[in-house]
């Protein structure tokens, strides 16, 4: 129940924010009957209604027995994985594709509880080289160049 109440509040906030930003959509001389603000306004209203229904249901209907769930990562750990992915963007921009990938593969492996041994380092080097060969050499796709080298 608490989770659904929280979901309801978050969805209401999203609906309000979305509507608020939609009021900034510029007016066009090519505007039709509905206009570019038409759908966003309807969507914001619908999401607000859905959020309210979820909230009311959470209060009125007692929660059923908890379903068996597969083991999942706690949110700080899950977020950590996302941060490693996000760090790839500036690192690739700075040191280039091969180096960034090396750090990414090594970093994720260690983050996923693999011991930082020579084997892990070799997998990271091998993996980065494999992807570099696949994308840059075989497929001819340009990957981030980096400014350092």
């Amino acid at each position, binding site marked *: 129940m608490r989770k659904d109440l929280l979901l309801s509040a978050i969805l209401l906030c999203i609906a309000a924010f979305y509507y608020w930003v939609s009021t900034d*959509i510029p007016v066009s001389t090519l505007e039709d009957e509905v206009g*570019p603000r038409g759908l966003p306004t309807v969507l914001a209203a*619908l999401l607000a209604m859905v959020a309210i229904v979820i909230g009311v249901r959470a209060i009125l209907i007692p929660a059923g027995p908890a379903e068996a769930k597969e083991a999942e990562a706690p949110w700080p*750990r899950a977020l950590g994985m996302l941060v490693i*992915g996000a760090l790839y963007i500036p690192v690739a921009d700075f040191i280039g594709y091969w180096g960034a990938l090396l750090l990414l593969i090594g970093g994720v492996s260690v983050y*996923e509880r693999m011991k930082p041994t020579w084997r892990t380092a070799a*997998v990271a080097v091998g993996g980065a080289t494999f992807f570099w060969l696949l994308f840059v050499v075989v497929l001819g796709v340009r990957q981030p160049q980096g400014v350092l080298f």
Partner: protein
Amino acid sequence: MDEIANALNMLVTTPLVPAALGGLIWGMLGGACPGLSASITMALLLPFTYTLAPMPAIVMLATCYIGAEYGGSIPAILIRTPGTNASAATMLDGYEMNRQGRAGEALGISLWSGVVGGLFGLTMLVMLTEPLSRIALLFRPTTYFGLGILGLSVIASLSSKSLIKGLAAALLGLMIATIGTDPISGVSRFTFGQPDLLSGIQPLFVMVGLYAVTELMTRSGVPSTIMKPNTTVRVRLPRFPMMKKIARSQAIGCTIGTLEGLMPGAGGTIAAFIAYNESKRWSKYKHEFGHGAEEGVAGPEAANNTVASASLIPLLSFGIPASNSGAVLLGGLLIHGLLPGPRLFEQNADVITGLYAGSFIADIAQVLIGIMILPVAIWLVNRPKAYRSAFILALVLSGVFSVHMSLFDVGIVLSAGMLGYFMKQFGLPFLPAVLGVVLGVALVESNYRRSLVLSGGDFGIFLEDPIAIAFFVMAGLIMIGSLAGEWRASRAAKASMA
């Protein structure tokens, strides 16, 4: 005759064969990795198809789906861990056969049933798709709007646990679809002055983020409970007496697979379980089920492989995806500017012929490739989960960057992953959101507004189109049916609590 000649010509003049085999191998390996469903495997392939010509790109995605259905049965049989959801039914008797030292036989039956199911589904696809798509020649903007609403109503049947949460997910998807330049007036919406957002957020990035990145986040640090498969197993294809024994369950699987493939929201998993049940019901050897019955492997495998082709019928005819994998394939079609419907058959006949020929090649080739790839699949299953996660993330980031050579796109995918994690935590299903992104602006909003432009703002135009009215009624019935189902389920839950 001309079409067969064209297909044969394609074999030598286009990259059809490598695309079909490449997709098949990718699908088998992805399907064999526990945790990578068929849709995730296809989503990981999407960025690679971006730079290809439309025909090989679509062939690769479709054959990847075919491959993933067999690949999923490998860990299901060997280590009691279904590689894809649909292979969970195969596990029931497949793993029992493995415990009896008959793993090779179980894999052979799975492979053979996959071929039978795949070829049957392909026959249905060829026979039904074009005639059905001809209906779409009568479509006007109002009809397309009605079709879009029907497509979105599929959300109801896909939100098995909670319709309201399915609607919330769909609305989030629709909101994402409104980012970018308005298709009618040309003004920018929700771009926050960011030029990279002017062309909108591609469904491709949302799908890769929701399916692949979210999975990596959710499973981060969770210890792998997967047991090590026996590396000496070899596939043993069934001989004639065994083929005869499993023929009935394969026929049941093919029939159920076709019906489920045609129904939006049903998908391979439901088909496989129904086929298992029905195979048991009609079997002469009922007592063997649950104890290593060959028919218990053949029925579900035939069913989920039939679904892989049959689910393309509503997708290619009307653009309605029946499952997550169908949504990814629809994304692939739209990326290459291919709109499902009769014009696809007229203007892009080469893509359709290639798709049929490629699927045929994949269905036949899966016998040989399935045998050859088994040691590689076992090796892959045996890799530490940490390395698998690292390589998948590297593949996602490299693949997404290669679409537009833009790190901004990488950021979009990671944001979609974050959204997916949020949705998963609160029980919001992914497929409605994907449908919202794919169908939202392109089909629903554009045609709604075009209809009103044509009528000068008169809403009565929607009531003048009988096909649109039929779509609205069908959408309404789907929603009511789903609400009734949810109400019944909640009453049953209350009764069991009391």
